[in-house]
């Protein structure tokens, strides 16, 4: 292709002043180029224009001229010159001068008003500007001043397009989904994009719920990628890992001749952990953005509208929670947005609990969802400092009432069948968990103690359905200890009987059937460093019963791991000896840490 054929090339002198680079002037007679292209007389100039637009080395001045000529001839830029329009839309305009930006906005608005079918590519090109520039995450939750200006121009344009074309709201939502950066694309890009999606919510409140739902969907997909164990390991052995990685590097250098399989697998595992580390950072930043959005949204006009404000955002999130989060298996952090929302007003945790409880008791609902809702109730009541004693009492009352009614209705049941009575066992475990966790609040006064006794826990424990059996051993042990201390119920005989009668069951397929409940504690400790500040204030750590003479050696604890053997029963009578679910080798670490994963997060001794 000959560069000499381009018409209207400015003199060298005028070009030399701008940048040291060589620029090819863009033609300003779009009119004739397009009409020649359409009639078929001269296609080369059109193609040359496309190439020079994509070369990304055009001076501002040239681009301004081009955009002006496009603006006046916008009627001719229809679907037949689709590729030219797309090339113009993809121009990098925002990082440059103000005039160029305003020309571009002008052209864009004119284009979508004249040819509505270009709305979708136009919005997509705008949304891609939200990726920002640079790789390092912002030190604070906000972008730099320069970037903020860049973003505000894009927002202004989007807002105007939405005003001119009322039907484009749906197109925008779709474009938001399409343009959402892939989770492994880097934490900065994701942070910047999510920040700007939240910005759209501020000037388009009617789109808020849908945008929130989109963001949560994406954050969930990141959250379930990161195993909890990895985060714990990251917390502990960060330095260790680094040295390990260095060691690996040197090793690979010297053993290039025969790379053993183990070395190769070690490298891949390091790459994997690095990837997941990066994902964890992304998740941390996105969670931070979500918390900041909630915080700012609620403090925007803090006068008489505050209550409505809080409730509206809460209802949005509750809707998303019920439709997305309740159905997700293995999320660890996204649910903390509900936790944080509940800290805003005392009424909100009650609303949350009511919604959850209605899920548990709704007959038509899927059993898994009902069980998950029960787990959520147990976890939020235990972990949230914002749940008042009264709210705790009322939910406990409801739960125990429901359980008693269930036992009444199932008098024929003789065996403990987790599959059949899963919801009942989940609710019971929740009940035990809350009592074990919040015993200090519940029995603070004599009246409170009497109230706990009135729940009829003893009757429940000794019922034929045997709710203690499928419970997580740690929960059962702690509950037994607490109830024994306050003389509410006597569970150890039941526990002993259960441990004796626990036979290994084998199904036809040869796999051991699950006799324990599928345990899930959604509000286990929050492990992301940056965003944890929003949660930590209101997070309740486990406070064990303190009794003298409970000190036990590690070896004794190891003995009680899993189902307690018969002879260790007297030890089980004391609160200190409940089982550790982390492996015994990690015991030393768990002494000053919480045990996670399938454990309820009780403090280990």
């Amino acid at each position, binding site marked *: 292709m000959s560069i000499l054929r381009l018409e209207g090339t400015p003199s060298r002198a005028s070009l030399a002043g701008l940048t040291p680079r060589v620029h090819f002037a863009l033609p300003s007679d779009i009119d004739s180029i397009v009409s020649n292209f359409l009639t078929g007389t001269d296609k080369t100039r059109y193609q040359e224009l496309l190439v020079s637009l994509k070369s990304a080395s055009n001076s501002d001045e040239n681009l301004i001229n081009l955009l002006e000529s496009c603006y006046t001839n916008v*009627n001719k830029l229809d679907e037949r010159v689709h590729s030219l329009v797309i090339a113009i839309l993809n121009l990098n305009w925002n990082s440059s001068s103000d005039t160029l930006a305003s020309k571009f906005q002008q052209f864009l608005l004119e284009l979508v008003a004249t040819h509505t*079918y270009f709305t979708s590519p136009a919005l997509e090109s705008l949304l891609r500007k939200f990726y920002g520039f640079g790789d390092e995450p912002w030190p604070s939750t906000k972008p730099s001043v320069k970037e903020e200006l860049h973003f505000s121009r894009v927002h202004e344009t989007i807002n105007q397009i939405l005003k001119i074309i009322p039907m484009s709201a749906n197109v925008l939502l779709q474009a938001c989904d399409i343009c959402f950066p892939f989770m492994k694309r880097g934490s900065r890009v994701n942070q910047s994009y999510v920040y700007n999606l939240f910005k759209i919510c501020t000037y388009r409140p009617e789109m808020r719920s849908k945008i929130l739902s989109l963001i949560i969907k994406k954050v969930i997909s990141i959250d379930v990628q990161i195993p909890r164990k990895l985060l714990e390991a990251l917390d502990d052995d960060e330095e260790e890992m680094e040295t390990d990685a260095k060691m690996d590097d040197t090793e690979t250098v010297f053993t290039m001749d025969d790379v053993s399989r183990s070395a190769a697998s070690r490298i891949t595992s390091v790459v994997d952990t690095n990837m997941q580390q990066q994902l964890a950072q992304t998740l941390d930043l996105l969670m931070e953005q979500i918390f900041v959005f909630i915080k700012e949204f609620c403090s925007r006009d803090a006068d008489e509208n505050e209550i409505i404000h809080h409730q509206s955002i809460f209802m949005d999130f509750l809707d998303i929670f019920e439709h997305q989060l309740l159905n997700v298996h293995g999320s660890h952090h996204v649910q903390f947005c509900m936790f944080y929302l509940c800290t805003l007003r005392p009424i909100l945790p009650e609303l949350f609990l009511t919604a959850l409880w209605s899920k548990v008791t709704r007959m038509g609902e899927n059993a898994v969802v009902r069980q998950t809702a029960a787990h959520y109730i147990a976890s939020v009541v235990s972990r949230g400092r914002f749940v008042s004693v009264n709210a705790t009492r009322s939910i406990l009352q409801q739960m125990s009432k429901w359980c008693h009614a269930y036992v009444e209705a199932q008098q024929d049941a003789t065996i403990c069948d987790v599959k059949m009575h899963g919801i009942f066992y989940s609710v019971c475990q929740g009940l035990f968990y809350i009592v074990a966790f919040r015993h200090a609040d519940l029995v603070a006064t004599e009246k409170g103690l009497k109230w706990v006794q009135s729940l009829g826990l003893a009757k429940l424990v000794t019922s034929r359905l045997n709710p203690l059996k499928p419970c997580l051993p740690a929960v059962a042990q702690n509950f037994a200890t607490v109830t024994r201390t306050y003389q509410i119920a006597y569970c150890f005989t039941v526990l002993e009987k259960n441990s004796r009668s626990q036979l290994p069951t084998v199904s036809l397929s040869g796999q051991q059937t699950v006799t324990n409940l599928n345990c899930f504690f959604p509000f286990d400790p929050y492990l992301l460093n940056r965003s944890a500040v929003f949660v930590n204030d209101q997070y309740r750590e486990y406070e064990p019963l303190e009794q003298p003479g409970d000190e036990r050696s590690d070896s004794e604890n190891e003995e009680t791991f899993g189902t307690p053997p018969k002879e260790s029963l007297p030890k089980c009578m004391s609160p200190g000896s409940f089982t550790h679910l982390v492996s015994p080798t990690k015991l030393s670490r768990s002494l000053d840490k919480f045990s996670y994963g399938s454990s309820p997060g009780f403090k280990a001794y």
Partner: protein
Amino acid sequence: MEIEEHMGATSEGDACVWVHCVKELYLQPHYFNQVQKGVGDAMNATINKYQGDLAGVVRQHKNVKLLSVDGTITDEESYIKLQVEADFEVFRPFVGCKLKGVVNKVSANNVSCLVHELFNVSCPNTMGSDDWVGYNAVLGQEITCQVTKVDLSGRIPYIRASIVKLHQTENGNHKHFNDEEEEEVVEEEPVETPKKKKKKKDKSGERVKEKKKKKHDSEEEASSTPKKKSKSRREDVSSESEVIEIPEIDILKALKRKRKSGDLPDSPRPKSKKRKLHMNEAGDKFYYDDDGGPIFV
């Protein structure tokens, strides 16, 4: 398959027709125990979207009726197919028809306007002539144009038109295009009002009926089990009556209008309720006042 019957245009210049037809809906399995909600959601999903079988964009619908007792599940597909009969208001512009809109963007060679506050119509100066009418257009002005090109199938319908006439408001100052809602209401009034009244009555009557039916339905559904019938399974949707009446779903819109008229007692709406609008040859609208003299709008 489709019984279509035109019920006439709603009013001049809006290119809308009421169509009575049979439509097939596909419900997802999670609607099994809430068929009414499913039908409502599926019907609402058609609003403001291009429907190929109706050859236009659905504006609203009413009188939704389930035609059959059963829904069918064919082969391995997950959804239930239901047949529904309803009246649809369909926006169906064609080349050559006239549209009334409000200008919402004016630029050198193009005037863009909104029809029904929703559909963008662009009126470009295609000939490049110097005495183009569009040069006089002002934001918020009412405009009549003639369609020259239509493509409704995209996510945003594309309509191109040429300007026929720019309407001048009496005082010369044009309403801002955010306020045009009242303006449009005046025109639609003579045709729309009687229908709406009917609707409201129908609704209250239907609701009582439905409450009774709902109870019955849920009981039925709980006990019914899917039966196998030759190749296709059939799912009992309701067994009692052949036709379930589904409430008019456009409640939000109705509420919105209701509130609007309540908030603005001085709007021209109540006036035009009683009087019929006429149009003279020049296209100006007027109505006859109590003395029989014409009053121009």
